[in-house]
């Protein structure tokens, strides 16, 4: 697989898998307005994944369209970071994951607007507008829940302690990022870390949450080495298309 294709797949799979996780909230939100917010966010992400996977299919040149890539790959072929495949667990963890991820996305999309891959640049210019609203929504709730009741703060702190180690993967140096940066197709995750910290830390501090120390932890979703949760997610996401190949409605 070329670095260019792999770079695009990582971004597309992040959108696809987080879109899948957030859509699990449909009908189960704590209040109607948040059910709508999470599913609208999922819709934006799924739309982005369609554009990205459609583009990846063309780069791959094996006649796989967005549906084939979304629904018919095997687990090790997905290139999403592990952070997005983790179970939602509760509203606190869902919101905090959205904060950590959408802050990253805003800076990634901003940088990709200058990509020499013009399709990727166009997708970036479109998607950054949506990511800004996702970030604002997540930051708002992070502060309200973190600096909230004893229960809400406990849940938010537990969410932060659980999710924080998985964010390291967003910034780890790797050959695909380096190749993409050299070719001016993309930027390395590492180059976004400072901006991400500057965006996320003030929100967590305002939310009176304790930011965990960085401890040695490695997650490998970007390399196709997924957590134990990915198989269950794919079973649910793929079973219709696998049971009825080519189904349309």
């Amino acid at each position: 697989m070329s670095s260019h294709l792999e770079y695009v797949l990582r971004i597309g799979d992040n959108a696809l898998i987080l879109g899948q996780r957030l859509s699990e909230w449909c009908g189960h939100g704590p209040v109607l307005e948040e059910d709508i917010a999470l599913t609208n966010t999922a819709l934006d992400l799924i739309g982005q994944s369609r554009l990205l996977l459609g583009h990846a299919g063309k780069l791959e040149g094996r006649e796989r369209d967005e549906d084939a890539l979304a629904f018919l790959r095997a687990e090790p072929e997905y290139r999403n970071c592990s952070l997005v495949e983790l179970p939602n667990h509760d509203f606190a963890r869902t919101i905090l994951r959205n904060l950590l991820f959408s802050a990253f996305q805003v800076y990634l999309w901003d940088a990709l607007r200058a990509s020499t891959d013009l399709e990727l640049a166009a997708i970036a210019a479109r998607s950054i507008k949506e990511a800004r609203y996702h970030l604002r929504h997540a930051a708002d709730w992070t502060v309200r829940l973190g600096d909230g009741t004893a229960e809400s703060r406990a849940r938010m702190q537990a969410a932060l302690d659980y999710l924080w180690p998985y964010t390291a993967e967003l910034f780890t140096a790797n050959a695909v990022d380096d190749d993409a940066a050299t070719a001016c197709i993309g930027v390395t995750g590492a180059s976004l870390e400072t901006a991400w910290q500057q965006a996320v830390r003030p929100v967590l501090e305002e939310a009176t949450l304790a930011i965990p120390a960085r401890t040695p932890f490695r997650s490998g979703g970007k390399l196709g080495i997924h957590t134990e949760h990915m198989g269950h997610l794919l079973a649910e996401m793929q079973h219709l298309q696998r049971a009825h190949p080519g189904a349309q409605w």
Partner: protein
Amino acid sequence: MLTEAQAWGVLQQVPDPEIPAVSVCDLGIVRSVQAQPERLTVVITPTYSGCPATEVIQATIREALEQAGAQPVHVETRLAPAWTTDWITPKAAAKLSAWGIAPPHTAAPSETQVLRFVPPAPSCPRCGSRESERLSQFGSTACKALYRCRACREPFEYFKPI
């Protein structure tokens, strides 16, 4: 075969499927029309990445132009430049308001303040009061937020600047 001017006339009658008070031209979704001898090409730009109306709009545009005599019709989707609410004309904004949706009243933001921000306060499309409060940043569609007027107590949707 239709001329470009005739094609634009047809397109101005094609309503947005979610907000039939405005046309796909009013919202700046139709970007260009080119009448070539061999076909008519319409370029559209989708509003939001996941907007489910995009495919309906494509089909409706093709159908409307074919019924008006254009043959063949090619509808092309172009992502760049990205769609923005800045393309909604003042006339279209007035139509939105009359329909009960508060139009975007500021330009599309180029960055977003996430801490201690004050949500925008659109005027209530029913009574005109500026005493509105935001119920949800997201509404019945991706492009709208949900507000309530504190004066007349009615809820209304707000077209988010993007």
